[in-house]
């Protein structure tokens, strides 16, 4: 299958840092696939995601989109760790944020907002202010905002790390449902190996200093995934060993 995003011998050095945090990292993300990126703290997972998001420029090598840009869609959309809703906009208007610069008419925009809200179970919440939402709901709005632009790739930076364990499980299952209903690929950064195995088609382990891809493991378990499946535990154990945690 064709890839949607390719990193080719990517390097990045933080401004003022002595050496690069990422060097010679190559990775292709297949269209429509779910890729989890794991690694220890500070290894450069978030840096990779920020390059993918276009928030920072690669120092060396390249990041490119391989599919042509399609009208009425964005190539990428980001779901941030902190939800990052605009507090002065209602839930609906937050979801509409990425649509405002797309070349689609107002009726389509409204339709997309309604659709994204109902997909994420927020149909009743359109008129709420962000401060009236729980952490899990806010994160759902963040996902709805990203899905509304129908991105080729959805970039998620530890999006569930700030919610409680139960909510987290629910959001994981929901994300799979949303992803399957969309045509987007997902690049999901997490430090949680269990989460990565539960969600992804492919788990990419970043390691080393400077970091590059040290493991690229396909997870061929049937969905919805069963955490009690021995193969699930095997995959978690294998990745844990690769990361040096037991």
């Amino acid at each position, binding site marked *: 299958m064709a890839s949607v995003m390719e990193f080719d011998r990517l390097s990045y050095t933080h401004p003022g840092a002595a050496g690069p945090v990422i060097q010679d990292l190559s990775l292709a993300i297949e269209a429509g696939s779910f890729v989890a990126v794991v690694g220890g703290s500070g290894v450069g997972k978030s840096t990779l995601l920020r390059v993918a998001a276009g928030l920072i420029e690669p120092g060396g090598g390249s990041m490119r989109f391989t599919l042509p840009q399609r009208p009425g869609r964005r190539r990428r959309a980001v779901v941030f760790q902190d939800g*990052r809703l605009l*507090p002065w906009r209602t839930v609906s208007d937050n979801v509409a944020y*990425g649509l405002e610069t797309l070349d689609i008419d107002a009726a389509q925009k409204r339709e997309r907002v309604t659709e994204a809200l109902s997909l994420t179970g927020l149909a009743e919440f359109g008129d709420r*202010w962000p401060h009236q939402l729980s952490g899990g709901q806010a994160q759902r709005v963040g996902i709805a905002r990203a899905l509304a632009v129908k991105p080729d790739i959805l970039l998620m930076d530890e999006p569930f790390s700030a919610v409680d364990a139960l909510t987290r499980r629910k959001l994981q299952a929901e994300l799979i449902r949303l992803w399957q209903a969309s045509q987007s690929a997902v690049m999901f950064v997490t430090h949680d190996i269990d989460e990565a195995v539960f969600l992804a088609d492919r788990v990419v382990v970043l390691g080393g200093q400077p970091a590059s891809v040290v493991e690229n493991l396909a997870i061929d378990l049937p969905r919805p995934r069963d955490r009690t499946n021995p193969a699930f535990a095997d995959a978690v154990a294998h990745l844990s060993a690769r990361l040096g945690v037991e």
Partner: protein
Amino acid sequence: MTRVVYGVAGVVLFVLLWKAAGVFAWVRPGTLPDPFLLPDAFLQEWQSDRLLPAVGSSLIHYFWGLGLGTLFGILVGMAAATVHRFDMLQAYLARILRPIPPLAWVVFAIAWFKVSHAGAAFVIAIGVFWVNYFATYSAVRNIDPRFYELARSFGQGGYWRRARSITLPAIAPGTLAGVRTGIGQAWMTLIAAELLGVPGMGQEMNAAAGVGAYEAVVVYMLAISLVYALCDLVYGLIERRVLAWRP
């Protein structure tokens, strides 16, 4: 309810003390107005057609000075905080001009505009300008940079799109608080400017004081207080509406 009772009691107590100060001659006789004569003084000012024109004249200075000072304060503050070169260009200039009290400009206000509405508005505008300039400047500087990241991620990263979708709404609480401070500051400057000769409540006060009509002075003081309270109330309502998104 208890609050109202206590509040009224406080005012009554104050008026009684005031009256007592006159009756028992705690201050030099003839320098303290009698609070019980204030209604008469009010009627007299009203009937002699001095109060309302004075209020009207003051309000003209007030709204022009306040409006122009606020507008330019916000614009310049925003430009300085978002355009780096302009920020550098204005930094020393602002530091030199800022400490000059608005009333020091009265000399030039009279030289340029003579004793006119424009002169008073000019002096007021200067004070209001600085209040709004600093409020807006620091509000822009305090915007969480993560919102700008969000703007870039969702195709709203250009200067004008970013300004409209992030900067303006994000600074609204700080800027509107500045505007409110300006509303108060404009009143202070206004009366002081009028004491220096421009027609309005300040001038009427000065005239009344000149002939020892201290009750009339107090009538104007209370009128100032009332008009200010009304302005602040109306503004507070508008502000609450605009910032309805806040918890």
